[in-house]
């Protein structure tokens, strides 16, 4: 995207101003979005995003700037803005004088799409989304069906004054189907979402009609459901997006973003037992075609499979470059950012609970009264206190070990460290699901996952 000479020139300006490390991040996105509502293409849009972020490290102090003027003048102006406060105080060594000897690393295509976006015309996408539409109309009460297809192609280049030159390409596709069921003044929703680091083969792996049916049936169930019960009770969490509980209750607490400042309740606890021994929690940036996968992170480091918690014992945090500098922990290829307008921070990639040995049916045994939370929405956490929440989209009452009537979703709330110790059993049916996670470095694609899991008590925010 840029010439070596220009990149070396910009990096050396940072070094000349006394920066220990200068890093330039350049990216180009091509995005396409299509929203279909009730059989009509409502909005179709296409976009080019193109920009660069320059980061200078002065010890642990960071200067960050970004622009989408990627001409030599534009980038020099950016460098001048960032170095102005410092003045030209640094000494430039031979490496930093513009003759940087870059070591090139390029993506091997591990997550390349089988069906690239250009394979099919736009009308093909519309026709496939219409399949979701008709399948979602499972009953006359379904009044609205909306489906949304997002296609992302991102090319990144990360270079730094240590000589790294890393090029990566990420292709992602995501399909959402939302259905609304109405009965008089009552309206309820159903949702189905699938997304991977793939091209249009997503629509073959997860046929839109199947997602449509799932969304339609869920909306109808919610329309007929009573409000969820309220209070503290045992909860069986469904597999797949159920993993959002661990994303909130523990994942965010293990990012150096909070850990480095001891603003996480799980700071300084490596080697300690932080969860029930049935919990093994992994963050894997290398999962083939995972929604949160990439070959390199946004700081140019190779992604890896990081074991965070092993049989209840804390083994690693998620560490970016800055986090490593502040804590001394080994970097884990976890530096991520939404786009060039954010400096990277440590973030999750594909995070999941590994399968246990218990059968799903056994999880319900002996529960006198509880909640089976099957499908989920997003959540939120405060790492400093561990207080987390996440929303349930589809749920059932458990009575005497049996799954009984459907109840409407409710928020589940708790404190992460307490909930981790209350995990009673983990089933063997691991599944993963795509989500978008918001934090200091913006909104990012992350996968969450787990088998069915039984937690002995969580506050269920239903109604009484």
């Amino acid at each position, binding site marked *: 995207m840029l010439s070596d000479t220009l990149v070396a020139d910009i990096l050396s300006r940072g070094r000349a101003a006394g920066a220990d490390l200068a890093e330039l991040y350049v990216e180009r996105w091509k995005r396409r979005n299509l929203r279909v509502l009730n059989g009509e*293409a409502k*909005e*179709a*849009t*296409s*976009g*080019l*995003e*193109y*920009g660069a972020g320059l980061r200078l490290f002065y010890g642990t*102090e*960071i*200067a*960050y*700037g*970004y*622009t*989408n003027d990627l001409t030599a003048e534009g980038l020099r102006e950016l460098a001048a803005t*960032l170095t102005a406060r410092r003045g030209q105080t640094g000494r430039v060594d031979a490496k930093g004088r513009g003759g940087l000897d870059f070591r090139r690393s390029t993506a091997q295509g591990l997550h390349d799409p089988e069906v690239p976006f250009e394979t099919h015309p*736009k009308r093909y996408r*519309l026709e496939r989304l219409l399949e979701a539409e008709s399948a979602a109309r499972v009953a006359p009460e379904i*009044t*609205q069906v909306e489906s949304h297809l997002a296609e992302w192609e991102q090319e990144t280049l990360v270079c730094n004054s240590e000589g790294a030159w890393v090029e990566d390409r990420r292709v992602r596709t995501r399909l959402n189907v939302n259905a*609304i069921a109405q009965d008089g003044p009552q*309206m*309820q*929703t159903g949702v189905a979402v699938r997304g991977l680091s793939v091209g249009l083969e997503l629509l073959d792996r997860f046929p839109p009609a199947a997602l449509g049916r799932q969304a339609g049936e869920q909306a109808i169930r*919610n329309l007929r459901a009573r*409000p969820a019960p*309220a*209070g*503290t009770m045992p909860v069986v969490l469904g597999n797949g997006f159920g993993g959002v509980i661990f994303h909130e209750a523990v994942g965010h607490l293990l990012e150096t973003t909070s850990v480095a*400042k001891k*603003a996480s*309740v799980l700071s300084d606890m490596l080697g300690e037992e932080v969860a029930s021994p049935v919990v093994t929690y992994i963050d894997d940036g290398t999962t083939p075609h995972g929604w949160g996968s990439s070959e390199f992170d946004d700081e140019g480091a190779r992604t890896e499979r990081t074991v965070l918690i092993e049989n209840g014992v804390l083994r690693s945090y998620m560490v970016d470059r800055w986090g490593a500098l502040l804590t001394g922990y080994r970097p884990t290829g976890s530096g991520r950012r939404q786009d060039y*307008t954010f400096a990277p921070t440590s973030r999750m990639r594909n995070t999941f609970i590994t399968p246990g040995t218990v059968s799903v049916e056994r999880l319900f045994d002996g529960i006198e009264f509880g909640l089976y939370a099957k499908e989920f*929405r*997003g*959540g*939120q956490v*405060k*790492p*400093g*206190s561990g*207080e*987390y*929440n*996440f929303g349930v989209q589809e749920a059932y009452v458990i009575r005497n070990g049996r799954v009984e009537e459907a109840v*409407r979703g*409710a*928020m589940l*709330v*708790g*404190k992460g460290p307490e909930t981790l110790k209350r995990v009673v059993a983990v089933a063997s049916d691991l599944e993963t699901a795509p989500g978008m996670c918001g934090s200091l470095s913006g909104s990012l694609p992350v996968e969450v996952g787990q088998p069915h899991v039984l937690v002995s008590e969580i*506050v*269920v*925010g*239903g*109604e*009484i």
Partner: protein
Amino acid sequence: MTFDEAKLHILNRAQTRGIGAEVVGQRQRELTARAHTGRLEQLTQAVQGGVGVRVVVGGRVGYAYSEELSPAALDWMLDEAIENASLQREATGFLPAGSSLGRQDLVGDAFAAPLEAKVQAALGFEGTLREDARVKQVMLAAYSERVWDVSVASTEGADGSYRRGIAGMGGSIVMQEGTSLKQGWDRRWVTDLGMLDPGRTALEFTERTGRLLGARPLATGRYPAYFEPRAFAHLLFAFWSMWSGKAVMEGKSRLAGRLGERVAAPIVTLIDDPTISGGLGTRPFDAEGVATRPQTLVEDGVLRGFLTNSETARALDLENTGHASRNYRGTLSVAPSNLYVRAGTGFKPKRGVIITEVTGVHAGASAITGQFSLQALGLWVEGGEVAYPVENFAVAGDFLTLLQNISGLGDALEWELVWGGVACGAPLVGVAELSFAGA
């Protein structure tokens, strides 16, 4: 290419091809200074932006955008938008007739101060936060300002631009007393630097978070609820789209078809006013170049209106209220600006839960169903006095039922910048009874 050159390039190409086009451009300047343990931790300075086009080809509408302003990128953008338009079957799209709107500057020299002064503001803010012995960590403490140059131009004659901006102090602290830990996230935005007071803001932050230390579990039950202004502002934002003309048009609002009906307690009046001087969401015209004006949505409990743009106004046979929203990356929608519940005569909580904060609004509230179940923090009130803080509970209900059950409104309005260019305001809101799930 500059934005003005890009705009002319696109409109000329569109005219040559005989199609309607509307261009929105945005250029954003950001300055953020983050402080930690008495030192500057991160300084971000940037300029960024792009252009987006909406085309109408024989009544069919398509969109595209670009951050690269080269002729090749702009031509790609226009071709894509035209191809996107061809996917529509219905051919009812149109661009509103536009006018020359001139250039308005809402910022002036409001943020004129040397960089060093802004860095000092961040350092002073962070330093004051650390003075409270209960503050265990300052996770984030920052001064931040953003200024946007927004332009709209169309083949139908719209042409104008404005400049708006905000500055603020914000951050996150972890406080501890005994074994009790609380993390606060807070921010204060203003439209003029003179209104910022880093030291005082820091004291407010520690007071707001510190009062929750030592919280006890709340027993599951139905209690009277009192939403603090900023907590209610977040709840209001979760449900504002019930008043969106777009949601009404698309069958996603339970308020559809209820104009003139009583939808809230008689003390409730809800207004969106994009013209408030110094408002955080103030703008002179909307994303279609239509001049903005205040719109009453609920008056003394009665549903009086919806927020519309040209498309939704025509579809619903309502007046266009000038609430079109579209940033360059997005598509035409509707958005509030300064949306607020009018302050009342004041009241004093007697017994129940003062809700100081709701979290997880994106996951626990649905403007389509109208229902919410949200994690909350609060204070238990007994005999008209705050008895102790409460935690680990969720509050649930139906927003339209809640509006009907509003029993009292405080006499002071507070504002919260909830998202992008939208500010929500509310006084203390008392609700007769809500369902609380806890211990």
